[in-house]
């Protein structure tokens, strides 16, 4: 199982998750609910807990 992180969209506040390789890749994520594009650090919130 590969690591994932949860993202809260900065625009619509919908929540989705991504493969952790996108966390620091410098690529914009795409919100599946409103199609806003933003970097992970621009998200309304991130949940990166992992064990």
């Amino acid at each position, binding site marked *: *199982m590969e690591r*994932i992180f949860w993202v809260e969209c900065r625009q619509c506040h919908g929540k*989705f998750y991504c*493969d952790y390789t996108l966390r620091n*890749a410098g*690529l914009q*994520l*795409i919100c*599946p609910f409103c199609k806003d594009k933003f970097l992970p650090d621009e998200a309304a919130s991130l949940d990166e807990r992992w064990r």
Partner: protein
Amino acid sequence: MPKDLHTFLDELRLLGPEELARVDKPVRPAHFDVTAILEHLAREKRYPTLLFRSTEDLHGRPSRFPVATNLFATRARCARALGLPPERDKMELSLAYAGLERQQVPSVVIPADDAPARQVVIGQDEADLAILPIVRHFEMDLAPVLTMATIMKDPDEGFYDLTFIKTFYKDRPRRAGLTIHSPHHLRILKKYEERGQPAPVVNVLGHHPAFFLGSLALSPWGTNDYDVIGAFMREPVRLTGSETWGPDFLVPADAEILIEGVIPPGEKEICDPFGEVTRHYQPQGLKQAFDVTAITHRNDAILQDIFSGHEEHWFLGSIPKEGSMFNSLQRQHGCIKAVHLPNSGAARFTAYVSIHKEREGIAKRVATSALLESWQFNWVVVVDEDIDVFDEQEVLWAVYTNTDPSRDVDVLKNQYNIFHSAAGHQKIIVDATRPLDTVFPEKIAVPASAMERIKLSDFGL
């Protein structure tokens, strides 16, 4: 008449609405109308093939293409598609599948003018994926997704490889994203990437269900999948030259809709989430880009779709694997009675195996072998031969009554698993057979002689 989706739907139509339900009320597939209907039916344990005859395309306009889905939603229907008795839909179906995948029927090439799939040709400049009524399946899905099979051709050996992959609509007419997991597709793609060349790919959006069942055969590298599919179709697959590459890339002449295109070397697109076979969403990630070079289709083309994470998606996993797994384990151990990949394990990451147990320890040997039969397995449960592996209640009864957790469950750590689950990269084997090295209670049974003597019909039941 060659087999195609239309000929199979005609067969189903004669069997009534529980096999083929035609929906005339307009639906908007990109707005979850199709999957909401499928989910309602699934909750009622009803699995008809659905033909939505009035659909909307991604521009919000009435589409010329109906949508067909749930074709594979019962094992009996899959048996029927392969020309087998629908009542023999358990181990017999899986073994028949394993027999078919060892056969080949050479394909034939016909002129493009005679190919239904080339009746309408939309070239690169006019091609627009949004003319299709592509289904958006689940709430968190990134976009509408095409869920059927794709074709690639090995650039060195010239064989064709078919598998199921997802194609994500990317809000542009001729650009999509592909999520390729198949080892053979990835191996072919790597060859093109190493040469810096675009990799041709053709998406097959509808054909006879035997075509797609055959595309899932566990063929060795180098096998021409068209010829294997011919064995499942029980007739040669008719091929024709593609619009983009002509005779250098042959496509199925009796397909409904074909999307031709290339994976440009090194180009990626953000794809996912998508509601996957495991009933979890695949996380968003970077996947292959896909540039459309042509769309061709029949005059009366139907767009076929898979209701992922539900019965038809699961049976497309279990039926192709159970028979070959049975044969492989039987060759090694000689005591195998049945193999089943249950829907509770998405027909991918769990296997139930029943054995004739003659001594302690054999169940774990079988379980260890079974783990090697698919890189997707997380769990293997082995039961005695009197347990029907197709009846999950019986299997779980065996687990709850026969299994000593301190001795009969083993966890293999640091084993790669592809699917997200709390097990992480661990694999679990469970010996749920009755112990032979200690006294143990007996399973209840009405005497077999009484069962034979008493017939329900004699009692008006």
